[in-house]
């Protein structure tokens, strides 16, 4: 049964608190670079300018790290949700024979403890028969870790 994703009400793969934290961190980075700009422009001392340059580099590094974490987190949630939806579709609409000689349903032989995609090399030439995921689960079979049906 397909269940509604609790995160679907959000505008994107991020939660509001994450949006706030990332915005605050990026503002901090911008502020650091701007302050370093003003600080380095108002001193002629090389040592002091080096310090301000360090502040600017720290701000830039903060922006890079926060951006990377933000994008990676969003991408990870998207990938997980896509995988969950694919599984839901497979369970809800699992029907053998999508076309001549092509089966959507995973396959296995009676002796197997895992079920596989029809194209999985572990079942090639073994005469595995397609069946629904429910039937495989009833037979105490688990998904193949190689082909991930």
């Amino acid at each position, binding site marked *: *049964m*397909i269940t*509604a*994703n609790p995160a*679907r009400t959000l*505008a*994107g*793969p991020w939660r509001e608190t994450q949006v706030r934290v990332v915005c605050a961190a*990026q503002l901090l*980075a*911008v502020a650091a*670079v*701007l302050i*370093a*700009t003003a600080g*380095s*422009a108002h001193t*002629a*001392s*090389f040592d002091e*300018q*080096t310090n*301000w*340059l360090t502040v*600017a*580099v720290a*701000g*830039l590094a903060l*922006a*890079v790290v926060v*951006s990377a974490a*933000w*994008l990676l987190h*969003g*991408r990870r949630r*998207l990938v997980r*949700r*896509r995988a969950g*939806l694919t599984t*839901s*579709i497979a*369970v*809800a*609409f*699992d*029907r053998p024979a999508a076309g001549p000689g092509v089966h959507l349903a995973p396959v296995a032989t009676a002796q197997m403890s895992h079920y596989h995609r029809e194209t999985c090399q572990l079942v090639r030439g073994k005469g595995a028969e397609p069946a*629904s*995921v*429910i039937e495989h689960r009833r037979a105490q079979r688990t998904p193949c870790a190689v082909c991930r049906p």
Partner: protein
Amino acid sequence: MNLLRWCRNEWERTSAVMLIGAGLVVFVLGWVGQQDKGLVTEQIPYVVSGAMFGLLLIILGATIWLSADLRDEWVKLDRLEEAVTRTAAALETSESTAATAATATPGGHRALSAEARPASVEMAR
């Protein structure tokens, strides 16, 4: 007119383009500004304001653009999930109706044997 509408609809990408453009401008201004400065202490402010700040703006713009891509895909998954849920519900309804009709007819119990029973009917149990 269409461009204005696009900018309003795609405000994230618009702001991303503006940030990246501003970053490039700042970058070039910093480059030009430091060229005629002979002392390192005169060049460092341009490095900080031009290179660092320009780079920061470009990074922010790129992040916003990529975030918009991820959010678009998330919204597409929302629509897809709704469509799948609707279709699955309609399919289950039609199958349960067909199963009810089959049990009402003589010999209909054969149509509901374990082999012929649809997976979605099994799932509904």
